[in-house]
C-alpha cells in the first residue's frame, strides 16, 4: 500500500497571534511552527501500516522552503520520503488541487490528512482532495483498518460515532483517536540523523489558482473583566437577569 500523509505546517498552539502589513499578513515573528496536531495522529497511524503491513509512507506539504524543517521532522518520525510543492499555500482549494496532482501522478492508495489545520481551521483540504481525485472519503476518522483494498473506519459524528465500510483509493480526514496519544512519536537522535539522508523532493506547482482570499485579519475585542460572585444566589440572578442565559 502506498500512503501519502499531508502535513500542515502550523503555529504551535500557544503562539501569540499577531498580524502585520495593516492586518493583512500573519506575523511569524517569534512563532514556533509544528506538525499540525491532527496530522500527527495520521502520521503515527501511517507508521503502523508501514511497520505491520509493509506500506510505504511519503509525506507532503504545499508551502515555501520555510516548511522543510516540519517535513524533516516527519521524516525523523519515520516517513520514507518527503515532497514539498513549492508554492505559498493561500487557500484550501489551491492546496487540494496541488495535492491532487501529486496523488494522481504518484498512484497513492491511501491519503491521510488532518480533519482541519489549526491555523485557518478550514476543514476543506481532505474533502476537496477526495472530490478532485475521485477517491472515497471518510472525515473525522478515529479508527482505520485496511485489508487488501477493503477498509473499515470509524468516524466521530455529533453525539457519537459510526462505523463505515469503504475501499481504496481513500482519503481520510483524521484526528485524535486514530492512535493513542501515548503512541505519538517524538523523533529520536537516530531518526533525526536518518532523516537528513532521506529524500526531500521539491516539485514545482501546477499553478492552481485560489477561490477565496483572506483580505484582512482582526483580533477579537478585548473581553471585559470577569464578574466574581460570592454566592450561588448572586450567580443565578446574574445569569437570569443580566446574561439572559437561563
Amino acid at each position, binding site marked *: 500500500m502506498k500512503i501519502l500523509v499531508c502535513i500542515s505546517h502550523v503555529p504551535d498552539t500557544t503562539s501569540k497571534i499577531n498580524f502585520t502589513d495593516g492586518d493583512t499578513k500573519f506575523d511569524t515573528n517569534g512563532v514556533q511552527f509544528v506538525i499540525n496536531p491532527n496530522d500527527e495522529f495520521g502520521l503515527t497511524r501511517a507508521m503502523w501500516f508501514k511497520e505491520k503491513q509493509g506500506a510505504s509512507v511519503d509525506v507532503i506539504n504545499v508551502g515555501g522552503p520555510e516548511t522543510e524543517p516540519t517535513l524533516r521532522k516527519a521524516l525523523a518520525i519515520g516517513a520514507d520520503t518527503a515532497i514539498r510543492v513549492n508554492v505559498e499555500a493561500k487557500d484550501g*482549494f489551491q492546496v487540494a488541487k496541488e495535492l491532487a496532482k501529486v496523488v494522481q501522478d504518484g498512484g497513492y492508495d491511501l491519503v491521510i490528512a488532518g480533519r482541519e489545520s489549526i491555523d485557518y481551521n*478550514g476543514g*476543506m*483540504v481532505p474533502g476537496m482532495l477526495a472530490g478532485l481525485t475521485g477517491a472515497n472519503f471518510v472525515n473525522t476518522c478515529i479508527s482505520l483498518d485496511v485489508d487488501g483494498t477493503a477498509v473499515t473506519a470509524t468516524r466521530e459524528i*455529533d*453525539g457519537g460515532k459510526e462505523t463505515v465500510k469503504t475501499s481504496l483509493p481513500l482519503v481520510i480526514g483524521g484526528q485524535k483517536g486514530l492512535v493513542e496519544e501515548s503512541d505519538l512519536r517524538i523523533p529520536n537522535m537516530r531518526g533525526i540523523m536518518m532523516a537528513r539522508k532521506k529524500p526531500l523532493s521539491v516539485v514545482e506547482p501546477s499553478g492552481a489558482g485560489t477561490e*477565496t482570499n483572506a483580505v484582512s485579519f482582526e483580533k477579537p475585542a478585548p473581553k471585559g473583566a*470577569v464578574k466574581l460572585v460570592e454566592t450561588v*444566589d448572586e450567580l443565578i440572578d446574574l445569569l437570569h437577569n443580566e446574561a439572559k*442565559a437561563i
Partner: protein
Amino acid sequence: MSVLVYTESENGVFKKASLEVASYAKGIADMMGTSVTAVAVNGGDTAPLGTYGVDKVLNIKDAKLDAFNAAAYAKGIAAAAKAEGAQVVVLTQSANAKYLAPLLAVALEAGYASNVVSLPESASPFTVKRTAFTNKAFSHTEISTEIKIVGLGQNAYGLKEASGAAATEDFSPELGDFGVEVQSVDKATDKVSIADAEVVVSAGRGLKGPENWGMIEEMADILGAATACSKPVSDLGWRPHGEHVGQTGKPVASNLYIAIGISGAIQHLAGINSSKVKVVINNDPEAPFFKAADYGIVGDAFEVVPELNEKLRAFKAANS
C-alpha cells in the same frame, strides 16, 4: 437566481441549527434581492422552514439516504443548486455538513468559507467574516467564484422569524455511487449532543475522579444541557472521548458554558471561545479560565456545585 440552504433534520424534524441557517440565507437573499430555496433530505413537516424565511423547499425523499452519506448528499445538493441557479449555498457547521461541504465545493467549482460568523460584509465582492487561528482571530475572506459556499458557525446569527410559507416539492436527483457504507451507529439518543446544546456543563481534572460526575450530570439534567470535559479527563477514561472539548476535541458554541474544575489552558479555550456566556467555578483564583470568563466563583466544586444544583432546581421550578 437564489440562495440555497441545506437544512438538516433528525427523524424528519428540522434541527434548530437548520432554522438558523435558513434565517441567515434569508438575510443574504434580502441583501441580493432574491429568494431562498431549502434542500431537505427526508424532511418531515417543512412549515417551520417557511417561518424562518424559506420560499421553497426541495425535499429529496429516498430511503437510501436515511443513513448520512457525504458523497450522495453533496451530489443531491449540487443538483439542487444547479436547478435553482443558486449563487450562494449556505450550510451549518455540523459534523455532517463539514463532511459534505468540500465535496460540494468541488462539484460546483465553488469557493467555500467555513466558520463564518456574520452576514456578508458586502455582496460584491462577496466578503464574509470567519474565525481563524482556532478562534484567536477573525479573517475577512473574499470568495471570488460565481457560486459561493458559506458554512455558518452554530449560534453565530440566531433565529430570525420572517412571515412566509414554503412551497414544498419533491426532488429526485441522480445520486451516483455511495462509495462509503454505514455499518453501525453508536449514539446516545436520550442525551443532548454538544453540537446542538444551548447549555454545556463541563468539568475537568479538578473533579478528582469519574465517581464525582453525578453532580455534573445532575446540573446538565436541570438545565437541559450537554455534558463535556477537558482533555485529560477523557484521556484518563473518566468520560467518553466524544465529550472532550477544545482544539483537539469538539468545538462548543453554546449560549452558556459552565466550566467546573477546568484550568482554562489555551487548548481548551480554543474550543469554547464562540460560546456566549462563560461561567467558571474553580478553587484557584489564579486559574487562567477566569480571564476568559464572564462570571466566576472562586470556590471548591464539591461545595459550590451541590448548592448550585439545589438552587437551580428551585429556580427552574419557579420559572417554568
